[in-house]
């Protein structure tokens, strides 16, 4: 089977390249479901144990409404909307974080404890929890824990929490359709790999390597 026949075999053979790209992406409706939590119920190739596990995780709830609100505000401070793409909450990052802490219990105590640590800091400083603090207070607070090398020694627990929160937000955002388009990943599309484009080889002086 040549490549043309290969693509036909997976149902992509008669389309142009641009259409090929679209053909590999699920429809908008499915997307809306998938930016949040995917049920996996009828997915081919999934073992019953996997489907069962996802169902169980989806039925559980970990974060309280207050914790979710805090995660949402923090997520949008970490990845705000800009000219190229939307914010963390536009990409449903809080839903991803809710799922992933259930999936990976090692995140649970550091996240729950870190959120409470943050609230206590804010209560002591501003007499308000983090979500109820003003925007400038929120930014002031985050600034103290967002730069590990600048942070004061007594802020180190906050730094550890914020590093984790930033990592989860980045994964949650850049693995959505919005995030992947933002970062410019152009793969997961049938093609013929013929090597690094000549102009890029030239840019890096790699023509003869």
């Amino acid at each position: 089977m040549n490549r043309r026949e290969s693509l036909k075999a997976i149902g992509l053979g008669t389309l142009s390249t641009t259409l090929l790209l679209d053909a590999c992406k699920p429809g908008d409706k499915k997307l809306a479901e998938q930016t949040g939590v995917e049920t996996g119920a009828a997915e081919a190739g999934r073992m019953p144990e996997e489907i069962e596990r996802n169902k169980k995780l989806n039925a559980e709830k970990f974060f309280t409404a207050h914790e979710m609100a805090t995660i949402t505000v923090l997520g949008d401070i970490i990845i705000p909307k800009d000219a190229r793409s939307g914010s963390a909450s536009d990409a449903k990052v809080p839903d991803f974080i809710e799922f992933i802490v259930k999936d990976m219990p090692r995140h649970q105590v550091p996240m729950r404890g870190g959120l409470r640590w943050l609230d206590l800091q804010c209560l002591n400083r501003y007499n308000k929890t983090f979500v109820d603090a003003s925007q400038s207070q929120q930014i002031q607070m985050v600034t103290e824990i967002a730069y590990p090398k600048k942070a004061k020694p007594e802020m180190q627990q906050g730094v550890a929490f914020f590093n984790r929160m930033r990592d989860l937000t980045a994964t949650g955002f850049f693995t959505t359709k919005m995030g992947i388009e933002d970062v410019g990943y152009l793969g997961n599309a049938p093609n013929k790999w013929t090597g690094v484009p000549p102009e890029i080889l030239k840019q890096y002086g790699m023509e003869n390597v």
Partner: protein
Amino acid sequence: MDELQIKKSSTVYDAVIVGSGAGGGMAGYVLAHAGLKVLMLEAGPFFDPAKDSMQMKWPWESARRGASTPQRNFGDFDGAFGGWNLDGEPYTTKDKTEFYWFRSRMLGGRTNHWGRISLRMGPDDFRGHHIDGLTDDWPISYDEVKPYYDRVDRLIGVYGTVENIESEPDGIFLPPPKPRLNELFIKKGAEKAGVRVLPGRGSVLTEALPGNKDRGACFFCGQCNRSCKIYGDFSSSSCLVIPAMKTGNLKVIANAMVREVLTDASGLATGVSYINKDDMQEYQVFAKQVILGASACESARLLLNSKSSKHPAGLANSSGVVGKYLHDSTGSSAGGWLPQLIDRKRYNEDGTGSIHIYSPWLKNNRKLDFPRGYHIEYGGGLEMPGYGFGGGIQDMNALLPGRKPEDGGGFGASLKNDYRRLYGTGFGMAGRGMAIARADNYCEIDPSVVDKYGIPVLRFHYKWSDAEIKQAKHMQDTFQEIMHNMGAVYGPPEGAETSYGLEAPGKIIHEVGTVRMGDDPKKSALNKWCQAHDCKNLFVVDAGPFVQQGDKNATWTILALSMRTAEYILDQRKKLNV
């Protein structure tokens, strides 16, 4: 449940094969195409990559964005059911040693998810005793295996380049994929360090395979580890088992966990007993030949659990070597990122899902403080984002132009832009080395533990020696030099406290050697045809028969040896010897 009883099949097959991976699949393919009636038992579910692969799925189609799960240790889209820990199927270790036993449970076994890295072992890998006296020679030479390697290349397809290096024998190659941009930096850096870099060797159809109408040519999604819907790479399921089923001569029973090999009063094998995981009933099936391809350790377990008056120490074990000489490849790795690639232009750089470049071992160990070598596998490029994307950016973004060291981390629009700027700059390298096969690295039956099916489990005893630890140190030193030459950002080398990053035994999933072959029945379980010395209609076709693995990954050698054994069985049947 109905009263428990053993259901005995009235059919006597020409052969029963335990396991459907590279070894079992190849034996089934050869025997079914020769007209034998073959039954194959697989402990996991049926799996056809054409229908069951997660290929071309986007990260958001997984709630965990492709992160690993207990069922899929290499990620939610990876094509491997199984792992180092299976529910209800324990194994144990003794004397505070470590071994991690990976078990794949699905049609095609581990060949659905592997890296498709397809290296031949060389003449000194088969016969290395003369080098330093540390290893035992195989009873067969490279020249005897070469014709089978050649035929495996033609049957399955492998890319690579002819290099005429004696220790790295050439095959019959399809064109290799060109390096990705990051890999060109690696190549330049490695060659400056005196480490030669070759185009990769992988079983992916970069062009249509001549004479094969059932498999598609690769369309370069880079997702071989998910298994391929158009059979564009090698999986035992797509390339061997399913084609063998199409002959009408091979029947597969999935979810069949084999308990033991059955023997008669004369000591010959008559079939196997298994538990059907769907109905939890006990079955016995009968065949003229019994062929084990259950994986090196699982086949050893089956033999050791198959005791009878004729075979009191377990089947094929009058020598006492079954389970001994267990060895896995060594592994140690490093990675970093290339500041030169900040703000790089985007294009589709997925390539193939196997290696694009690698470094064979070409150094002379007589001048080094460890006896045998390793090869290096490399990778990096504009990869599909998945779980972990952008992780640890606080250690990277302070190095962007114009930033101060204390600027690492942050938030907001500037951080968001940093993720874009740093995307595609990462790379990694991993050494895979030869470990010496030793009798005191072994698996045996744990006298007091059974799994949920009531089958006695394996107990492991495994220690790395100085030879492997010093080899890992050399890997780390070499990686540092390469990364320095690349102008990369990278951390310090792994030190003595981690044995230089040496992975625990079993973690590389190249474990072999537990049912070793040899000419002397007192020192080996199998003869040079992988036929048991003690039981002439019993064969082992996985990596159990390996006497000594080279630094090369095991799959291509498993395939060549299984083909050779299957043809020996056909020949012996003709001569009425088995």
